[in-house]
């Protein structure tokens, strides 16, 4: 591409952006502390400022009253950035003119509460301790959320045997809970209310034992009942006293050893999954795992577990992505999978990974892709339910998908098309870290009248958006200006020799309608966005036809 033309296009772009910026600046010249529509600290025309609040003819960033800072709540320990001072004070917060990471009270650490963990501020940790009535341990040495959650350790549990002389019963409790019972019992002089106030009650804790252990000789016996536990994924056996036992394993229901001591989830049955991610042996095994795609739920009529009424339910999804009315094999998704919807008029973009945007495959940009009205959508499968997340409208975001071992992950990513036409070399144009553009190579020898008014060689290589953006062309906006970048003129020269007729001698390619020069122009025009003649995503034609793309042909003799 000639330097001159690139410069002209770049200047045009700058002018376009500046016009929008200047016009918007001209309108939003006041910083309203509160607007008439109830928003705090917005740059708006003066008539939109609430008269009961402050306003100044400047940007909010330049005012003291709308300066953004961090709002810290000293009661529940929540720190939020980008809060104006007045808004913070109105909510009884403490405002600091700095970022949260510079405020000691906003530093995050690992809050270990009971068997749970949360990566929060120390104040929040204390607040949680109060709310849940649990002891906490706050660790500042753990500096990321994953490590924090991994460091949560379960309480030591076991059989808390309660013997009141007449009956020897049991509760499956954490050691601390049993100790609390022991303390209360001692406080009550050994006559703690377990049914009989006449005789002395003894409470013992047997770490790692189940209430059904034969060695404990309690009145709790194994049953065929199962249950789901809040906060846990697995199905558990329940004993006759209602206590939890080990993970449901139908094979071991009559094994006294399985009802004796706590068995870890790695030493019991393994839930296996088929290639579609569905559990295959959930009728006999309750070792569900949320991250593998199953969790404990009440059994349905068709589930038919060997024992009990609970089962490891499949959390994956089925979705008729192509809309053909049936579920094909590739329309079964694992729990946690995300993928790009097969939405009308968009490209299917598969990349190496969501961090590395190198496209592995992409259907070639045709006029049927990225057309007016089309939009990208991300599909999310969690808990046996598919939800649809629209990406930003006007194809300002595109959906990208990557796949590892059949597990797909998708994300809505900003479509960086804005400076494509200003790129004058292929390397800059196709730099996927900076922009989403493509380099079109076309070889013609056409001489044209450039935007500068000079006759110059036709540039056959162009950088255009890889995914044509959408415009609000039905109203005043950027569409007309951007599409005008594709305007061009071709000067054709005819010669008439003595006694002969007019013959084309120069730039004759321009006359080959729809093929070379014209074809290139149309492709360039359409690649810029919702420009030129197109059909919309519903298949309806626009008001332009292919030949309307030309302003006209004039003849000067």
């Amino acid at each position, binding site marked *: 591409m000639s330097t001159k033309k690139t410069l002209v296009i770049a200047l045009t772009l700058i002018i376009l952006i500046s016009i929008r910026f200047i016009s918007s600046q001209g309108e939003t010249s006041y910083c309203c502390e509160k607007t008439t529509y109830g*928003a705090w600290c917005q740059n708006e025309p003066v008539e939109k400022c609430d008269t009961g609040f402050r306003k100044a003819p400047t940007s909010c960033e330049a005012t003291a009253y709308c300066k953004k800072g961090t709002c810290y709540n000293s009661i529940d320990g929540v720190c*939020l950035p*980008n809060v104006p001072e007045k808004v913070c004070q109105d909510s009884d917060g403490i405002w600091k003119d700095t970022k949260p990471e510079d405020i000691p009270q906003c530093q995050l650490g690992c809050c270990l509460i009971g068997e749970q963990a949360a990566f929060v501020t120390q104040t929040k940790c204390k607040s949680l301790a109060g709310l849940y009535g649990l002891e906490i341990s706050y660790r500042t040495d753990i500096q990321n959320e994953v490590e924090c959650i991994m460091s949560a350790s379960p309480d030591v549990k076991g059989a808390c045997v309660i013997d009141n002389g007449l009956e020897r019963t049991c509760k499956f409790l954490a050691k601390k809970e049993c100790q609390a019972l022991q303390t209360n019992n001692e406080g009550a002089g050994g006559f703690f209310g377990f049914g009989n106030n006449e005789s002395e009650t003894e409470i013992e804790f047997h770490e790692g034992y189940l209430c059904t252990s034969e060695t404990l000789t309690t009145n709790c016996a194994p049953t065929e009942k199962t249950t789901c536990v809040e906060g846990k994924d697995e199905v558990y056996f329940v004993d006759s006293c209602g206590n939890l036992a080990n993970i449901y394993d139908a094979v071991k229901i009559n094994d006294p050893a399985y009802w004796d001591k706590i068995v870890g989830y790695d030493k019991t049955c393994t839930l296996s999954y088929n290639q579609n991610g569905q559990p295959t042996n959930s009728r006999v095994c309750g070792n569900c795992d949320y991250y593998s795609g199953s969790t404990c739920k009440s059994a349905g009529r068709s589930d038919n577990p060997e024992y009990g009424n609970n089962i490891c339910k499949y959390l994956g999804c089925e979705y008729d992505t192509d809309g053909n009315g049936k579920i094909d094999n590739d329309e079964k998704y694992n729990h946690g999978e995300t993928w790009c919807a097969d939405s009308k008029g968009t490209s299917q973009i598969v990349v190496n990974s969501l961090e590395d945007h190198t496209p592995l495959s992409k259907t070639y940009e045709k006029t049927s892709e990225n057309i007016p009205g089309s939009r990208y959508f991300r599909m999310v499968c969690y808990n046996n339910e598919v939800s649809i997340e629209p990406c930003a409208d006007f194809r300002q975001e595109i959906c990208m998908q990557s796949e590892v071992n059949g597990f797909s992950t998708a994300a809505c990513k900003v479509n960086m098309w804005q400076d494509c036409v200003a790129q004058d070399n292929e390397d800059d144009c196709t730099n996927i870290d900076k922009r989403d553009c493509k380099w079109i190579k076309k070889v013609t020898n056409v001489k044209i009248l450039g935007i500068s008014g000079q006759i110059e060689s036709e540039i056959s290589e162009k950088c255009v958006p890889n995914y044509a953006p959408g415009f609000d062309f039905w109203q005043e906006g950027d569409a007309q200006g951007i599409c005008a970048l594709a305007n061009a003129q071709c000067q054709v020269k005819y010669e008439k020799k003595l006694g002969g007729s007019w013959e084309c001698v120069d730039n004759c390619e321009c006359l080959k309608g729809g093929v070379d020069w014209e074809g290139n122009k149309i492709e360039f025009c359409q690649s810029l966005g919702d420009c030129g003649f197109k059909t919309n995503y519903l298949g309806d034609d626009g008001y332009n036809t292919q030949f309307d793309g030309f302003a006209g042909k004039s003849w000067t003799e």
Partner: protein
Amino acid sequence: MGKKREDSFFSKNHRAQVTIFIIVAIVIVALGILIYLLYPKIESSLGGGEENPQTFMQNCLEENIAETVGILSSQGGSMNPENYFLYNNEKIEYLCYTNENYKTCIIQQPAIKKHIEKEIENAIKEESIVCFNDMKESYQNRGYEVQLSSGQTKVELLPKRIVTTFSSTLTLRKTNTERYEEFVIVLNNNLYELTSITESILDWEASYGDAETTTYMNYYHDLKVEKLKQTDGTKIYILTDRNSGNKFQFATRSVAWPAGY
């Protein structure tokens, strides 16, 4: 012939008996239905199942609180949203907002829990006065001497519940004296958990302009997070507790991308 007549007589008699049984059965069923429908009235007129003041207030206000919480949950935490996005005919308050493009949003409600507590408190004020008066009247009708002095109302969003405490004092005198100094109404609801997630999403929106929904669903197994981007750059977040069905939805507008430049 005589036998035949006797048979006929017994047959008629038998049929009459059956008819009587059917009528009696219908009457019993009808009475049962009537008793079932009128039971609360019968119970109160007979003085049976007498509610204590605490239960009276719980029964009287629980529905109102639940309704208020439902409205607040669908409107981003405000009974009368000022700066809102109209979605499915619901006014959803912007909790983080900027009218400009490409810029991160400005937090509009930094203490969402406290704000909701205040909103509930204000919304139930009138109804609570009505309930206290009804309770007073109900006990007076039953021959009690009633003394009621109203105090402060406190609403707290707590894990898995919303607790409303009225520090009003009620003294009932009949054969003996009963004194109640506090009325606590508990509504099982996960708004505390949902607003905690909201705070985290707002932090991301204000800092980076977006929040990833799957992160939350990975950590919280019973949580569903939906993000619905609108044409003007607004995002509607819908948080749902899959177990209880409790929802909280709010709007943000941050790092919006307009059509064109």
